[in-house]
């Protein structure tokens, strides 16, 4: 079902009720996670809550930066936080910022700025006299641009990972093992003259497809296992494992952040496309989450991957290929996982966390350690880290 249809299905006016044997592939208010502004809002709120509780997760370092929860680049909503943004901008005037429309996808409408005058110009061009009267659809977010991304072969790339969530309370999510990296066709340069060149900065396939160097055979994509091999060979195993652990951590935390506000309708499951960028200090940053990740394919390998993705997703959401019953406990047996592995299972985590000590590599929960660490102290967190 498309996002549009979901909105209709769940809207109060239509009075449509899903029966017990109907399962849909979106949560009613998924936009809490997938709209760029709401995602940031929810994460900020989650952090503040943890801080209030005095949880060790919300610990900050001497600069006031969160130690474990700093995975989203500094972001402001426009027009609402314009003044806050200007303040931040003036603190580091040589930084670059990226403007993204909240509700669009595929890299549409994105541009980079490094001077305040450029925003003013943009607001003039979009034909509004002041920032006040902007309808929701034209809201923008502005984030600090990561201008030191990890480069391979001199090119910028980002990671696209698929995460399936079958329920939010208790949180149960699965990560697809075969994510991929999308490369730009042009060499990366942070120089200001190339700020307008979207082929250098944006990795969306929809954009890179139109570049003159785009190659249809491999589509500028690498598998995550390739990336892992490369990083292990050139940087060593420990930092690579740490990087991937951090990526898993980010995903779980972001889901936890929106879990309280998410309408945990039992008819729903959802497969998200997570976009992550790694900077040259091997720190991963969450860029955005997509509710309808592109399921079209640009190359032969791609088609196979997406086919398997859909297949495995349906196997987990609707087990045994029978008519679904939404009252089931949503705990699929291990065999149907296919290429998914359990990322976090709240039920399991709160159960016998103790003998999950062994790190079994059969793709068992990477989660339980995170579950334990939420209640236990700092020491456990550092092993997770």
């Amino acid at each position, binding site marked *: 079902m498309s996002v549009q249809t979901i909105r209709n299905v769940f809207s109060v006016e239509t009075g449509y009720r899903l029966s017990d044997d109907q399962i849909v592939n979106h949560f009613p208010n998924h936009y809490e996670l997938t709209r760029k502004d709401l995602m940031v809002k929810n994460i900020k709120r989650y952090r503040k809550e943890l801080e209030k509780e005095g949880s060790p997760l919300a610990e900050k370092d001497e600069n006031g930066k969160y130690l474990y929860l700093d995975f989203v680049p500094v972001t402001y909503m426009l027009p609402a936080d314009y003044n806050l943004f200007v303040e931040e901008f003036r603190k580091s005037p040589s930084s670059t910022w990226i403007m993204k429309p909240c509700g669009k996808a595929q890299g549409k409408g994105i541009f980079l700025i490094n001077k305040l005058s450029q925003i003013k110009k943009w607001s003039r061009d979009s034909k509004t006299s002041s920032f006040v009267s902007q309808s929701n659809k034209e809201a923008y977010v502005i984030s600090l641009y990561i201008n030191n991304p990890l480069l391979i072969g001199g*090119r910028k790339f980002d990671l696209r990972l698929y995460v399936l969530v079958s329920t939010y309370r208790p949180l149960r999510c699965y990560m697809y093992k075969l994510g991929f990296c999308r490369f730009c066709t042009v060499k990366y340069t942070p120089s200001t003259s190339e700020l307008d060149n979207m082929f250098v900065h944006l990795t969306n396939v929809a954009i890179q497809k139109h570049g003159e*160097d785009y190659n249809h055979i491999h589509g500028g994509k690498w598998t995550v296992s390739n990336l892992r091999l490369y990083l292990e*060979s050139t940087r060593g195993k420990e930092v690579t494992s740490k990087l991937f652990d951090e990526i898993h951590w980010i995903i779980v935390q972001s889901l936890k952040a929106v879990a309280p506000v998410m309408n945990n309708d039992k008819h729903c499951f959802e497969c998200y496309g997570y976009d992550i960028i790694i900077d040259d200090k091997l720190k991963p940053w969450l860029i955005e989450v997509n509710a309808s990740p592109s399921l079209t394919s640009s190359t032969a390998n791609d088609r196979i991957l997406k086919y398997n993705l859909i297949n495995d997703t349906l196997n987990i959401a609707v087990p045994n290929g029978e008519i679904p019953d939404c009252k089931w406990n949503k705990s699929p047996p291990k065999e149907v996982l296919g290429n998914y592995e359990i990322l976090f299972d709240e039920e399991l985590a709160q159960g016998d966390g103790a003998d999950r000590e062994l790190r079994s590599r059969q793709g068992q929960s990477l989660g339980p350690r995170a579950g334990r660490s939420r209640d236990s102290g700092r020491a456990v967190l550092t092993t997770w880290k």
Partner: protein
Amino acid sequence: MLQEESDLSLIIAQIVQKLKGSNLYSQLERQAWASLQRPEIKLESLKEDIKEFFKISGWEKKLQNAVYSELSVFPLPSHPAAPPEHLKEPLVYMRKAQGSWEKRILKSLNSMCTELSIPLARKRPVGEQKELLNKWNEMGTDEPDLSLFRPVYAPKDFLEVLINLRNPNYENGDSLSFRTHLGLIQVPLKVKDIPELKECFVELGLNIGQLGIDDSTQVPPELFENEHVRIGQKVLAEQDSAAAQQYIRQGSPTALRAELWALILNISSQPEDVLYYEQLKTNVIQHDLLVDSLIYKDVKLTASNDDYYFVFEDYLYQVLLCFSRDTSVLSHFAYNSASPPKSYIRGKLGLEEYAVFYPPNVAPLCFLYHEPSKLYQIFREMYVRFFFRLHSISSHPSGIVSLCLLFETLLQTYLPQLFYHLREIGAQPLRISFKWMVRAFSGYLATDQLLLLWDRILGYNSLEILAVLAAAVFAFRAVNLMEVTSLAAAEAVLADLSTLKVMPLLQIFLFATVT
């Protein structure tokens, strides 16, 4: 005994001679002079003290490594009366064949030159030099018109030449017995059979742990992997080449691989090496060779379209272009049956140029080294030690002729039904596996598997494992192959090797097949 002793002293003399001219020698000298300042060196026992100092400071290890690498590389000295050609290649008919093959390539190259009226080599005008310097890191995006360039030869041309090799002194006899070789290669070279291979590759045995098998998810790491990694780290700490070579026969952990290979090939990143690389780079910028365009075209056709290697396209250009101007590689021609043709920059000093080699396999190395000069060194060393044998005709047991023969013999002896069937339908197995072997499987296997395979090439200092793997692949897909009825169908069955796991295949073929 006396013969052995004199052989040994001959070898020692040769090695000493070689090392005297190397960088290491001057470094050792400098160190020795510097060590005179140290308090523990006394005049009376000068020699012993300095030796002791070398041992402690690790310089002795470096010398050991250098000697070891010379030993592995240099062929054994032969009879003192033998002419130098004999050292390159003892069999006359092979030498002749290589000579005529080279002539053919050169002729083709020259005719391409005259056709396109491009000189074989020319000096670049200054403006163009500046441009190339700017674009040095981005040569992948440049798209000159290359449609008129044809590759000089394809693997199957080379295969045809090998097939037509005949030893004029060998009479096959008219009667066909079951010992007759039914394959394509008709040259009587000695190749190993499975019992001999088992002895040779004893570390690949079933009861010895391997990376590539025993590090898969089902096996708990305590059993093998952790211990192996620990030993690997120890080997690196000791900086011992010989130990590293022994260790790597069981595979190298990904994190340690880059350093292990550098250790085995005895490459350390000295500032002189970086300088050398920069010098080559300058050469590239100043002079334009016809070969460059051919290289460019080949990389565009192969690596740019490859799922794993497209990212490194620009590195490939840099390395290959520099390589084609590297004269130090010429020293390996002393034991390569090929010889470089000479070409001259218009009027200038004679820059020796290569016969157009079939572009060797740089791309997988980009996964290990991301600094251009180190990448270049490793690549050069690997080419000079191993991969050149895949492109020239010789009787060396690691040469391509022997590999082909080994492959065919293995197949004929241990899978006779399959071999016969394929032959009947016109699909001689060698025709399919040749392209794998000539590229050392680069571009056919998944990268991590390829790196495991190359670990073993380094460990055993021979390319025979390529032939064994090729035979193992055929054995693995035997059931499907028995059902095909044409060459095209056979090729289709063997078209995709990217899902194969190298080590289990090798183990099964060598140690678990009922002979």
